[in-house]
């Protein structure tokens, strides 16, 4: 297990009673409070920023301007929206289960804040002469903690849908939670490869282990699976089925208004930041500087790493927005099939391959010269497998006979009905005067119209 940078800070922290403050509050506690408030503030500010960022970027992608009135470049727009929401009526429907209706937004927002606690924003820095890492707390089981805490967030959604006592929220909640649990599996499986390489579950340990290469290069498939799963996990486009406006109004929070609604919104955007931060930490070197900058020796010390981290984070947020601006929404069955039939089996098999590789390296049977061709071979087999499955499925679709469609009946059951899929309405015969001027076979047409007229 790698030596954590905290060991440095421990020596300094034993001096806190001799320290400069004349209070009985120990220094480590002051630092804890500072860091907790900072983490909270960063999350809130990032949420306000990201909402504006999303609206502006999507606007530019759609040749619009987007919010640009409130504050410079419209930066304060989200804050103004928050104030507006606070001044709206707080509606609690008559059908609602009141206590649960109140608890649900809290259950959504509080875990969202908590999940960020273990993300390292930088290495040890000096705050008021006291060394501390830019990380709220370094748990040895940090990543498991993030998964566990974010699984509590599902309660907010299920309970919001159920307690509203209304149909659309219930349907939205079911979809949303089924979606989250499905993609949580793929997400969890993609992490196992990283733990295998890093030998630890602590996020700071994982960042340390990426000193000589990000895991994105070593475990590309894990990274890709995680990135797909994180979009599904946060219910974002193109996987934003719970909020499919055309089908479910607003999804699970249809009945919510005022600041209760704002809390759901806040939780959604904080989760966006959390999964992006986790992606950066697990696969993209965490706070480590990217390659050209990392040649400069001072790049990975002091406060600079926080800058690299933020830049990487905002790039991920941009990718989220880009996806939303580009891709259409998936159908529910496509979405679930993709999660369960592709992501999960692929990540399980990939993990076994990674483990085999690692063991061969550990046992000394494999050196770099052999590793590359074997890796390429395995990748090729993988690709073939995926292609074969896809071809098989397409063949199955082709082989299934088209459903037999009954003939179109314009007045089925005594009511005029539109044609069903596969049926087509007969061409409407033209009116006689047009038909006569049109072309040669006029008499025939006249005949039919006369016939029709007689039946009428």
């Amino acid at each position: 297990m790698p030596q954590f940078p905290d060991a440095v800070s421990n020596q300094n922290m034993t001096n806190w009673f001799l320290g400069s403050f004349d209070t009985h509050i120990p220094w480590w506690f002051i630092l804890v409070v500072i860091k907790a408030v900072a983490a909270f503030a960063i999350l809130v500010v990032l949420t306000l920023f990201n909402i504006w960022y999303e609206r502006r970027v999507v606007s530019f992608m759609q040749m619009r301007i987007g919010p640009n009135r409130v504050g410079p470049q419209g930066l304060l727009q989200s804050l103004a929206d928050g104030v507006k929401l606070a001044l709206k009526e707080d509606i609690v429907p008559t059908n609602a289960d009141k206590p649960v209706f109140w608890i649900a937004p809290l259950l959504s927002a509080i875990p969202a804040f908590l999940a960020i606690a273990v993300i390292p924003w930088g290495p040890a820095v000096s705050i008021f002469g006291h060394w501390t890492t830019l990380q709220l707390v370094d748990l040895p089981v940090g990543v498991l903690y993030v998964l566990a805490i974010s699984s509590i967030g599902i309660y907010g959604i299920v309970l919001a849908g159920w307690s509203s006592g209304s149909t659309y929220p219930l349907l939205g909640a079911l979809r949303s939670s089924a979606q989250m649990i499905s993609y949580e599996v793929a997400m969890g499986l993609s992490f196992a490869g990283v733990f295998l390489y890093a030998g630890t579950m602590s996020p700071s340990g994982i960042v340390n282990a990426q000193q000589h290469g990000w895991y994105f290069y070593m475990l590309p498939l894990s990274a890709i699976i995680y990135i797909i799963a994180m979009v599904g996990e946060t219910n974002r486009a193109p996987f934003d089925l719970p909020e499919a406006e055309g089908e479910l109004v607003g999804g699970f929070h249809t009945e919510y208004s005022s600041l209760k609604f704002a809390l759901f919104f806040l939780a959604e955007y904080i989760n966006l930041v959390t999964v992006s931060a986790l992606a950066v930490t697990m696969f993209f070197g965490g706070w480590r500087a990217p390659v050209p900058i990392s040649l400069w020796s001072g790049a990975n010390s002091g406060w600079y790493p926080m800058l690299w981290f933020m830049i990487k984070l905002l790039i991920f947020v941009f990718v989220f927005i880009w996806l939303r601006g580009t891709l259409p929404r998936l159908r529910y069955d496509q979405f679930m099939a993709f999660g369960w039939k592709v992501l999960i089996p692929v990540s399980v098999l990939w993990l076994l391959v990674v483990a085999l590789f690692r063991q061969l390296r550990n046992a000394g049977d494999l050196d770099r010269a052999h590793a590359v061709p074997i890796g390429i071979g395995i990748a090729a087999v993988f690709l073939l497998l995926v292609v074969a499955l896809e071809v098989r499925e397409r063949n199955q679709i082709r082989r299934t006979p088209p459903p037999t469609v009954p003939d179109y009946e314009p007045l089925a059951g005594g009511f005029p009905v539109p044609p069903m899929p596969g049926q087509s309405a007969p061409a409407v015969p033209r009116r006689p005067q047009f038909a006569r001027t049109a072309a040669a076979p006029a008499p025939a047409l006249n005949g039919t119209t006369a016939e029709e007229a007689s039946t009428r």
Partner: protein
Amino acid sequence: MDTYVPILALGLIAAAFAIFSVVIGSLTGPKRYNRAKLDSYECGIEPTPQPVGGGRFPVKYYLTAMLFIVFDIEIVFLYPWAVAFDALGWFGLAEMVLFVLTVLVAYAYVWRRGGLDWD
């Protein structure tokens, strides 16, 4: 455990903020009573009465949650295994392959029986 003091601190701040906003939101807004407003929202039409215990949902959701539990348990075992992998050697790998294959048999069975099909 001292390690959790920061998490508790962050949790307290977050809880205070969330509870404060929920309470404030119910105080600052206007309150104009209107029976239709407090009804369930169904795009403006008269809300359908709740079926008394008769609402039927696809059982697929239940099956999904069940599959989720199984894979979650698998993940929970994969993590300590992955962390301790270098110390376990070939034996550890063989153990996990056996475990994963058994779960994959279950998974393949569910797939064959159409448990993963949504239509």
